[in-house]
């Protein structure tokens, strides 16, 4: 009975609402799902190779930017889900608070994707001026995983942007449920 409760709640919320509210709910769910997927893919990226008889691991934990990526996407996903499942009246105060939180979370998300992208570019191309050699040819599986996580992160940012535009341009109806 307890596991059915959220599904019943969501069905009750969606039934009989205008298409704009359904679009808002769908956008929010998609953004939360994409953020969760990005965090999970990045968190499970690791590869161990052998160089000269020594085992050299490559994990996302070794780079602070990738750790920030995982943490940021997980936090954004959790917060988006929380906002969705909390029934808020169509009062203007709650709607504005949610919009402000959305703006701040979107900024954090953009920063996380950007910093992870910078480190990945460094890993793929290196920087000859600083004497930093590229590492992707040695750990291709790790690099592919990070690339997939970055793509998921970009999709999350685009979905969040669409959600914000929807919230701003259609204020009185997008703040749901």
């Amino acid at each position, binding site marked *: 009975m307890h596991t059915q409760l959220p599904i019943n709640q969501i069905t009750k919320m969606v039934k009989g609402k205008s298409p704009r509210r359904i679009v808002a709910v769908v956008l929010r769910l998609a953004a939360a799902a994409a953020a969760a997927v990005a965090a999970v893919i990045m968190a499970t990226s690791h590869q161990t190779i052998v160089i000269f008889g020594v085992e050299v691991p*490559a994990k996302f934990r*070794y*780079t602070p930017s990738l750790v920030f990526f995982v943490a940021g996407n997980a936090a954004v996903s959790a917060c988006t889900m929380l906002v969705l499942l909390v029934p808020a009246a169509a009062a203007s105060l709650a709607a504005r608070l949610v*919009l402000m939180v959305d*703006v701040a979370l*979107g*900024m954090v998300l953009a920063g996380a994707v*950007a910093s*992870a992208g910078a480190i990945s570019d460094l890993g793929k191309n290196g920087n000859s*001026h600083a004497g930093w050699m590229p590492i992707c040819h040695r750990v291709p599986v790790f690099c592919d995983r990070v690339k997939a996580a970055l793509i998921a992160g970009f999709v999350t940012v685009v979905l969040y942007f669409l959600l914000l535009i929807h919230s701003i341009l259609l204020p009185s109806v997008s703040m749901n449920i």
Partner: protein
Amino acid sequence: MDLEQGKKAVCRVMQLKDKLISLQSVLRVAALLATTAAAVVMGMNKQSYTAVVAIIGTRPVTQTFTTQFKDTPAFVYFVIANAIASGYNLAVLVTRRLLQPRAQSLAVHLLDMVILALLATGSATAASIAELGKNGNLHARWNPVCDKFGSFCNHGVIALVSSFVGVALMLALNLLSAAAKSPHSNVSGQ
């Protein structure tokens, strides 16, 4: 009595709106200064030093090592993003008087968000590369460079801090616009 109370309420709302507009102007001027400072400081960031690399016979062979912001794509993006943000803030401040306040608020609000995203990504990228330059990464055999180029790193940190202040101010501007949004603003057909 009711009419007077109604008039007083309207008066208070108008005073609040005026305070809001002046607060937005102050924040925008501060953000303009912060982003301009960040772009200029990072744009003029350059350091070189000469070191002896070999001794042939009795003659020392020297080489000059130079580093500038153009060597790192992240810093190039940082300078460009801050320049765009400061140019946008200047344009909005200059054209405030020409457009009506209501027509301006929605377009400016949306553009504000785009510029905020641009600034946030630029600062985050530069910060991650700067952290790497300071601490290096042992696992990837990337050595830190800040011990050799101390002045370059210091100027970079100043530019980064200024840019983060600009990001915070732009975020405050955005939150103000979001909080002050009237629920009937889309009725006027913008």
